[in-house]
């Protein structure tokens, strides 16, 4: 089922665990070397930065190959069906190359294989859209089947996420066609599926045989928590029903059962946070944090409780003081929580992502007032203008 050798994947995990133990000085360097030698990994996985480059370049190759193919087959492609066929053909070629690369070159999350996998799936699935007369539910179903098969074979977490969303899309598109009763229960149906999938993902990840899919299961559980919330979020329910079911609500008008959805909107994120802290579960905790923002957004969208700027100042104060209090509180680790940085150095840290985010959100100073010293005045550029002061 899996394209990769299961033994090698196990060895990879053992090596990673041993490296963690080495970093914490639990084992010695000779021990680490011995473990590494006893569990060889022959996968080719480049540096994560190079991986991004390889991904981009493979996308370039796939796109231009597709261009070349369509140019050569111009005469045969008289209509959309012809082009859709070409897409399916190109997708299958991508898949074939992917299989060969994995078997012969032992690529494992190397950028090239990710690009080929995405290329294959996108090409095959987009052919249905190109043809144009296939219903949305069929598209969702096919996407779901293709991505589920791809997940089983390659254990790619992003594709597992797409598979889950396509599955929900299929349920949704089928349900809304079934009539008024089905339309009313759609939110509850999605909630039910989400929670079932979440519990199932938790249960499955406990099995030893699912160990190679643990990242896929994590992403599916994050998405299922999000969809569980969004299915009952007041904003989503109101706007989607208004849009899809032609309720023609006026501003200020509400949907049936509004009270339930309002309570649901406000309570679920808090429940996530509570469970996340209780169970020390990062997935629940972070999802809860993101969804707190969703509560604020939903309430503010319908009720302007406070003017925006006052709300921002108060919110900012609450967050800053709250975080400050938490840091003070966790100065000494309490109840198994700590403020100390996790020891594993992350890529985001190395690329100074934080400072880039600060630069992204920062708008420098006042805008030019439109006088004569605006820049670009001469070929001397910035250097020249500074002399004027």
């Amino acid at each position, binding site marked *: 089922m899996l394209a990769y050798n299961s033994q090698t994947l196990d060895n990879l995990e053992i090596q990673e*665990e041993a490296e963690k133990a080495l970093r914490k000085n639990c084992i010695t360097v000779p021990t680490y070397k011995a473990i590494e030698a006893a569990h060889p990994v022959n996968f080719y996985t480049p*540096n994560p930065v190079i991986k991004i480059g390889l991904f981009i370049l493979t996308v370039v190759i796939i796109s231009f190959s597709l261009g070349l193919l369509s*140019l050569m087959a111009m005469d045969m492609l008289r209509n959309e069906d012809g082009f859709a066929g070409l897409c399916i053909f190109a997708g299958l070629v991508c898949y074939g190359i992917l299989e060969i690369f994995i078997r012969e070159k032992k690529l494992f999350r190397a950028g090239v294989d990710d690009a080929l996998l995405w290329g294959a799936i996108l090409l095959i699935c987009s052919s249905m859209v190109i043809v144009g007369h296939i219903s949305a539910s069929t598209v969702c179903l096919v996407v779901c089947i293709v991505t589920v098969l791809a997940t089983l074979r390659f254990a790619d977490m992003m594709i597992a996420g797409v598979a889950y969303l396509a599955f929900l899309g299929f349920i949704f598109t089928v349900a809304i066609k079934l009539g008024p009763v089905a339309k009313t229960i759609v939110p509850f149906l999605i909630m039910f599926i989400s929670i079932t999938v979440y519990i199932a993902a938790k249960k499955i990840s406990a099995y030893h045989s699912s160990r190679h899919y643990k990242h896929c299961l994590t992403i599916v559980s994050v998405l299922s928590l999000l969809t569980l919330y969004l299915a009952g979020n007041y904003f989503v329910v109101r706007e989607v029903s208004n849009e899809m079911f032609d309720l023609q609500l006026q501003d200020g008008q509400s949907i049936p059962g509004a009270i339930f959805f309002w309570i649901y909107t406000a309570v679920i994120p808090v429940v996530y946070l509570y469970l996340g802290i209780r169970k020390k579960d990062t997935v629940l905790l972070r999802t809860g944090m993101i969804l707190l923002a969703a509560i604020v957004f939903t309430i503010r969208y319908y009720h302007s409780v406070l003017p925006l700027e006052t709300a921002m100042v108060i919110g900012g104060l609450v967050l800053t003081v709250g975080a400050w209090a938490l840091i003070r509180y966790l100065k000494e680790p309490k109840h198994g929580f700590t403020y*100390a940085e996790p020891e594993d150095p992350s890529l985001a840290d190395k690329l100074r992502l934080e400072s880039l985010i600060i630069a992204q959100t920062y708008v420098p100073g006042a805008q030019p007032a439109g006088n004569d010293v605006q820049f670009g005045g001469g070929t001397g550029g*910035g250097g020249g203008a500074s002399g004027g002061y």
Partner: protein
Amino acid sequence: MNIKVFEKLRAAALINDAELTAVKTAEDQQLFSLHWEIKTLLYLGVLLLSGGLGILIYKNIDTIGHQVILLIIGVICAGCFSYCIRKKAPFSWAKVNSPNAFFDYALLLGCLTFVTFVGYLQFQYTAFGTAYGLATFIPLAVLTVSAYYFDHLGVLSMAITNLAAWMGIAVTPFQLLSANDFGSVQLIYTGVILGGLLLLLAFISARKNLKKHFAFTYQNFGAHIIFIACVAGMCVYDAGWLAWFAFMAVIGFFIFKEAFRERSFYFVLITVLYGYIALSIAVVRLLITTNDIGGVYLGLLYFIGSAIGVIVLLISLNKKIKHASV
């Protein structure tokens, strides 16, 4: 860590009992870190606070007195800076770790409110005269000094953004391409000068050990700006594009050598990718002159073949830098 893995390793006699016990104790003492969660909250708080204050002032300019507003911002700004000055570790040209987590954000809030303060002074009283440059130059100076004095990478990025704004370029990461009109010749030259300046600063801070950890940020902004300016030059100039190509090759060679010295994959990658873009523009420019359908085929074949070539190149570079940092 996964205890089961280590128990298996113990069974295979690859680790001894002492090591297994050490792993188990370490795992038992493993704490749940809220580091990133709290940092995110703090950062959001600071952003909301400074943004909210900005809008508050903008909206209430007519009702509250200007002095009152100035006073409020001034007090917050002064409070943040005085907190930072009291808490800071002594200055050094080496990396200085921040005394506590709150420090970084207090400094950030101080800097953001300072920018608002100066902007407000300028807007209301034209305190710095009509020469627009001065009103941007003062925040630039304060941000730069703060970045070095308190050792803060985020403030350094703000200072660089401000420097670029002062010179007339928006270098905010996601707006680098959309907010600038790289069709204009002046902007291209400004970009080259700014990028060159930042690369020089990176070079100096790395070689002279002056806040060596700032080098990455300087080089990151500098390399992207100068490369984009060169690529723009190659597209805009119909006659002189070959000169831009040659100039870019020189710059690329320099950055590439530095990247190898620092064992930085990130800069190796961006140099290779920008170099590839430049080469492709050159090839396309040459192919356009052939004015023939065969040129299109040749172009497509070039892209497929060259991309494969670059992949092979990257893989072999990956092998050359064994223990890369980034």
